[in-house]
């Protein structure tokens, strides 16, 4: 994207634009909601948005997925790097989600609620 963001560019790159909007959504969800589950969902949305952005960046229209069936010059394939990286990223996001969810379960056991604001109020040493 160059220079001032004109609408033509934004619409042409709709994946990236969508990804950034999603990122914003996830970010706000993460921060604004008190409910822990919603926070985790927001985190997931945010991460997914970044994955989308990344993968979209790697897409070259007209090219094939990077799996070699018949020999083609490198320019015939989509950029394989982002997809590989994002696989890693997805795995990471899944593990963190799992960890966060298990912690949430423990929190629910101990505090009886999953609302973070209430939990903070309950405090207690």
């Amino acid at each position, binding site marked *: 994207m160059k220079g001032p963001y004109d609408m033509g560019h934004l619409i042409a790159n709709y994946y990236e634009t969508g990804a950034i909007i999603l990122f914003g959504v996830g970010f706000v969800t993460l921060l604004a909601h008190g409910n822990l589950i919603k926070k985790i969902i927001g*985190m997931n949305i945010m991460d997914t948005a970044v994955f989308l952005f990344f993968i979209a960046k790697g897409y070259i229209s007209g090219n094939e997925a990077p799996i070699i069936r018949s020999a083609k010059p490198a320019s015939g394939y989509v950029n394989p790097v982002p997809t590989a990286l994002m696989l890693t990223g997805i795995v990471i996001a899944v*593990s963190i989600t799992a960890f966060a969810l298990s912690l949430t379960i423990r929190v629910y056991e101990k505090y009886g609620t999953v609302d973070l604001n209430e*939990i903070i109020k309950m405090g207690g040493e």
Partner: protein
Amino acid sequence: MAVYNSYPLVIILVLFISAFAIPIFKSIKAARTIGISAAGISFVLSILTLMGVKENGAYYFRVGHYDAPWGIEFHIGIIEGLMGVLFMTVSLAVLWFSIYSIDHDLSKKKVPLFYTLVNLLVGSLLGIVFSDDLFNCFVFIEISSIASCGIVVVKDKKENIKAALKYLILSSLGSGLVLMGIALVYSLTGHLNMPHIHEALVSIYPEHSRNMLIAIGLFTVGLGVKSAMFPLHTWLPDAHTFAPASSSALLSALVLKAYVILYIKIIHRVFGMSIVGELPVLNIVLLLGAVGMIAGSVLAILQKNLKRMVAYSSVAQMGYVFFGIGLGTTMGLAAAIFQIFNHAFTKSALFLSAGSILEKTGKKNISDLKGVGKEMPFTMAIFAIGGMSLVGIPLLSGFNSKWNFAVAVIEAHRVELLAVVLISSLLNALYYFPIIINGYFGEESLEGKVYRNTERPIKELLPVIVLVLGVIYFGVSGGGLLSLIEAGIPALN
């Protein structure tokens, strides 16, 4: 290629493999043996690496024999070597100490888990420091996030879970921002390997300066959350207070530092001063660092819980590091890195001794700790030395650190900021000294206390004594370290 070139990778591998191996053996003894011997081996290797780098200069190590930019590379210069030694020294001391203290905090089942997590944590932190590939760094960042949340929650109390959750959420926020930053940089340059990114960025700078500003902003906020830059530090007090003493020591001393090192690398290696110098980022970092230095101390003064106070003190001390980075000069950077060393040794000693005191006396609040100097003179002495170092008493590393910042400030022609440095050290006195004084002096306080009643045996205090010796050593001969750091900075770029 010399032998030591592969050591950084070996260190990380050793630490990770031991972390995976520990759960196989169910016994605590096995966990300890494996964990600590792995740390010991890594310690030795890190020293050898540093010595090698000092002799022969910085080098690139390709992992898997693929050249960059397709393969992942490690770049080991003096700074990275120093960080390696620092991390291994502190973690070895903490692990050693944990042999005696961790049983108090954790249930028997969880102890092996602790050692696993610690090794994972240190390994991933070293990965962040060593790696020259941005995405590789990201992977290590995530591993360290989980591991550091893990060492908070390995103690099974409800405050811990709350604190760990808060930490995890904010940490993920930070990671998400960093990932977005990486994505932005990749979309601009098509590279993930730092020197290559740098070349590309420099050539396309004029047209894309706004994007680069956004990227730097993302990295700043993202890494700032994870390294407790004010005002993004809010997760720190809870996490560091409720975690077991050994965990708090590791969190304050090491975890925060690795992210700062990455930030330094991003500023200087990926973007470079030619770009960053034109953007207002460093001034903002400087400002936030300065505010953090003062606000952290002010908040610490208001605390009643001992560990919480030490935690806020960490926020203040990290403020110094950002202050140094924000100055934008070589001397400022050197002062910041020296402060990293200083704080790592001092804070770990403080947390371990504070943890000892809380464990042995069973009390948490500062007001309950009167006269503890008579009951636990040695532990209190260690705390006192740590506190005095942060206040800036000469012959201790904290004083050298403050002097370095003062010199850096003057060299950068911003003499007004000198006042900030000095005021903040004075503020430190306001919360450390009362503890030391009430601990050792005062008739009312000492009434009814028996000498060395609840003291830890010296054998158990040895690791903390080692850390304190580090504080004194860097206080007396910090010049050597400083010149080493200054020599290593050019290699960062």
